Structure formats: C-alpha cells, structure tokens
C-alpha cells in the first residue's frame, strides 16, 4: 500500500496561518500578538519539582489516568469552580487539554453523529470531530452578544438536532466569558435536546471582573458533560503538555480506553511539575492574572482610541477587535505584518463568525504591547483611517 492520506485527513484543510509564518520570517523586528500561550515561564517551584523528579529518576510511566496524588490535587483545585469529581474514577490526566478533547471526540462521537461547534472556535474542534467520523455543525456567535453562546444562536444553527455541543469559555479567540446567568439557558437547552456537552475550560483561571462558572455545576448537567482543563495557560506550562478531563466514571472509563492504547500516560516529568504547581504556585498564578488584566485594559482602551471597536473581553488573553471598513481581516493582518512587523491572527481562521476581526493576544509584555499598538496607530494613520 502506498502512503496515500486517508479520506478523513484529506478532508482537513491546511492551516490558514502558514503563509503568515513565512512573512514573519522575513523581518527581524516582529512583535507577535499572534501567540496563544503565556509569555511567562512556568513558575520556578514547578520547574524545580520537575528537575528534582528527573534527578530522582522518576522517569517511568504513571498510572494511565495519571498519578493519584495529582488527581487528588486536581479534585481539590476544581472545587473553586463548584465542581466535585472523585480522583479515583472521574478524573483523567492527559497530554495537554488537547488530548482530552481528542479523547472525548473519539470516545463519544460515532460516525454520522453531529457535533455543534460554537464559533469562533479554537481550531482543533472541527478537525477533531472529523477525525472521529462525526459531522461538524457550526454555531456562530455574534459580536452584539459579546460572542456569548445564546439559545437563539443554538436554535438558528439547528443545534437542537445535534448529538453534542463543544465550546470554549473563556473563549479563544474572542476573550468572551459565560457567566452563570448566561450558562443557565444553555444548560436547559442541552437537557431538553439531550446533548452531550464538551466544555473546554482551559482558560477558566484567566477570568477578569467576575468568577468563572462551569456548566457541569448545573443540575442535571454533570452526567452529560466532560470538562477540559489543564496547566498550559494559568500555570504557563504549554510545553510541558499537561491537561485533564473531568467526567462521570463511565465516561472517564471510555476515554481511558482510548488513552491507554494511544498515549498510555501523560508525561511523568510534567505531572510532577503540575503537582507542585497546584501545591505552591497560587501566588504566582494570581500575579500573572493581574499582569494579564492590566494589559487587557491597556489594549482595550488603545483599540477604542484607534477606532477599532472591540467588545470588552473579560477572559483568556485575547481581544477581538473589528478591522476598519474596506478591509477583510486577512488583508489587514497581512499588510500590518508586512509593513509594520506586528503579527496578529485573522479572525476567519477560527470559523466564519470571525471574519472582520483580528485575534490580538496580550500574552506579551507591556513594553511590546505599547510599541505594537503605536505601530498599528501609524499603520492606520498612513491610510488616513485615523
């Protein structure tokens, strides 16, 4: 047999961002607001714990579901979001939250099942559903709703007939959050139409002006929900690749069956780092959140001054400004990169609902943010847009 790609793989379009990489390579003064990961390093205590674990030779596999102490620490940690999960049966530690998402699609989606994907969305959900043989049903959210998911949006998209719903709040790429009040009708919709819910809460800790709410905490939702979270964003551990899923025991069993034959166990060194991160790095997390919040206010107020409207994002580390009239988001992003060396991601990469917007990450120091916004200002001035 020749190495001809499978039909499923062939169905996935190549990344829309690749050509931007090449343009960025041509300049050496690029300020990137295109990154989806923290600019902070992992808190030192967590790195130190990882190093110590290596010195002690802790380099074997762990239990498939992850080290018991870590699952216990996770169970304790998620109580802050009003979530109660049993470390023995209801938590599985994964290689990044991305693995958890993939496990859920493979464990619960049958060929022909429809998964409603709330857009603009993190780019992995659609392909993940496709790899699992499911059908993607986009559910666009709108700027006038501050990119929150509404029952109206679900109904318009026809999600009542779907089998499952996947979303990410606080949202990548918009920075939108869902309050308890916002979630309530969505939970009711899921119960009424018998939808499984895959709730990606990787940015939960990065919620400003308010508390993160989880849909799994609503009555009648726990049994139909898988919650994804991890250490990449709040604990600045992207490269350590560590996440987890929370779900009822039978659901974790199903995910674990896929996991034990594919990943076997999440990286052991990273598990030691994560254990320490939960044990002693709360202060550093708080300080990072405070830094993000400062930058968020700075960036929002600059875009407002530049006449690029931007709803008040209250989560993750993104804002989602609108490009000026006469531009599509790709042209704007490309010209801004070529002329001013500022990298932002065109919103349409995250689904059709993102057209006309830019994803601007503020996971970058204030000095660079100030410079980047000054360059955007001069870009607009040169075009008489300001």
């Amino acid at each position, binding site marked *: 047999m020749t190495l001809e790609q499978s039909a499923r793989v062939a169905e996935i379009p190549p990344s829309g*961002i690749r050509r*931007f*990489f090449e343009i*960025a390579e041509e300049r050496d003064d*690029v300020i*990137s607001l*295109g*990154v*989806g*990961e923290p*600019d902070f*390093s992992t808190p030192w205590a967590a790195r130190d714990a990882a190093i110590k674990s290596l010195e002690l030779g802790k380099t074997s596999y762990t239990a498939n579901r992850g080290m018991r102490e870590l699952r216990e620490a996770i169970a304790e940690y998620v109580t802050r979001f009003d979530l109660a999960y049993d470390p023995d049966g209801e938590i599985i530690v994964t290689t990044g939250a991305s693995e958890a998402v993939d496990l859920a699609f493979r464990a619960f989606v049958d060929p022909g099942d429809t998964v409603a994907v709330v857009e603009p969305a*993190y*780019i*992995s959900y659609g392909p993940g559903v496709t790899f699992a043989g499911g059908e993607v049903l986009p559910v666009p959210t709108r700027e006038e709703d501050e990119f929150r998911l509404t029952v109206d949006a679900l109904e318009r998209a026809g999600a009542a007939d779907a089998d499952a719903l996947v979303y990410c709040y606080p949202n*990548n790429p918009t920075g939108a959050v869902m309050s308890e009040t916002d979630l309530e009708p969505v939970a009711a919709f899921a119960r009424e139409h018998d939808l499984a819910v895959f709730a990606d809460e990787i940015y939960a800790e990065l919620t400003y002006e308010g508390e993160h709410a989880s849909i799994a905490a609503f009555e009648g939702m726990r049994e139909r929900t898988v919650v994804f979270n991890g250490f990449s964003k709040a604990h600045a551990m992207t490269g350590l690749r560590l996440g987890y899923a929370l779900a009822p025991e039978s659901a974790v069993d199903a995910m674990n069956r896929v996991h034990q034959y594919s990943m076997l166990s999440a990286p052991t060194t990273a598990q030691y780092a994560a254990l320490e991160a939960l044990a002693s790095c709360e202060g550093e997390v708080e300080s990072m959140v405070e830094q993000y919040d*400062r*930058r968020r*206010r*700075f960036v929002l*107020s*600059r875009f407002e001054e530049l006449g690029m409207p931007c709803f008040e994002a209250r989560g993750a580390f993104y804002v989602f400004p609108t490009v000026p009239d006469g531009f599509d988001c790709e042209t704007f992003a490309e010209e801004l990169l070529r002329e001013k060396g500022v*990298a932002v*991601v065109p919103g349409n990469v995250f689904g059709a609902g993102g057209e006309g917007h830019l994803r601007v990450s503020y996971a970058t120091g*204030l*000095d660079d943010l*100030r410079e980047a916004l000054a360059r955007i200002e001069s870009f607009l001035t040169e075009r008489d847009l300001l």
Partner: protein
Amino acid sequence: MSEREVLELLRENARYGTDDIARITGLDEDDVEATIAALEEAGVVRGYQAVVDWDELEDERVRAVVELNVTLDRETGYADIASRLARFPEVTALRLVSGDYDFDMEVEGDSIREVSRFVSEKVAPVPEITQTVTHYVMTAYKENGIEFGDGDEDDRLSYSP
C-alpha cells in the same frame, strides 16, 4: 487602592506615561496625574532614576558596600551619624540594618583608589564609627528588580493557535 496600583506601575517602569497608566488602571489621566503629584508631595515617591548596568559601559565605575559599626552616646543617635554620612555625594545608599553591624552604606567612585580614600579619610575618622568593612562590587546580576542577564529570549512561535 488606585494609589498603590499607580505606585506599582511607576516602580515597574517610571517612564510609563500618565496616558498609559490611565489605560492600564482604568483611571482618568487627570486622576493619575493627581495621584502621582500627591505621592511626590507626601514624599512617598522620592525620585526617578535609570537602572544602570555599569559592566556594559567602557568607563569604569567602582561601587562598594561598606559595613559600619558605630557607638552611640547621650548626644549622638543613629540619625545624627546617618545625616552626617548621607551628605557625602559618594554615598549612594545608607541604611540602618539589624545584625552584626549597624549601617549598610553604598559608595560609588571612579576608581578603587578614590573609593578607598573616601572610606579611610572621610568615613573611618568619624568619631562614632568604630569599624568599617568594605566590600567592592565585582559583578551586578540584578538591581532594582531588573535582571542584568542577556534576557530570556522569547522563543515562542510568532503564531500559535
């Protein structure tokens, strides 16, 4: 608590404009200016200076940390000795500390000779000073919260999902 926030930002970078501080804190620029003025007025903010890594400069700059032991008597307290020492322009920092010695004094000069001469001719003879121990700074790794390494290169990809 806006005062505290403004102070933190100035400590992070005293060159943030009042417009940027206003954007970051959500205060009006006028309020930021008033807050800074009040902090200066009250003597909370005593000045603004550059943090210099002398190793990167061709010209030599010699710095020393000097431990001072003193004896007090009825007429002379720590503050009296301190105000006498602090008047010397060579003294860049002076603190009363706990532990084995009394004052921790930082001195700057253009050469080791100049600094040594200052300590032996101007400081040691002060009657209340019983002992001086001079430590010359060999390398500075961090000053005022700023690390002097080459900096952590941002090795993140310029785009990531």
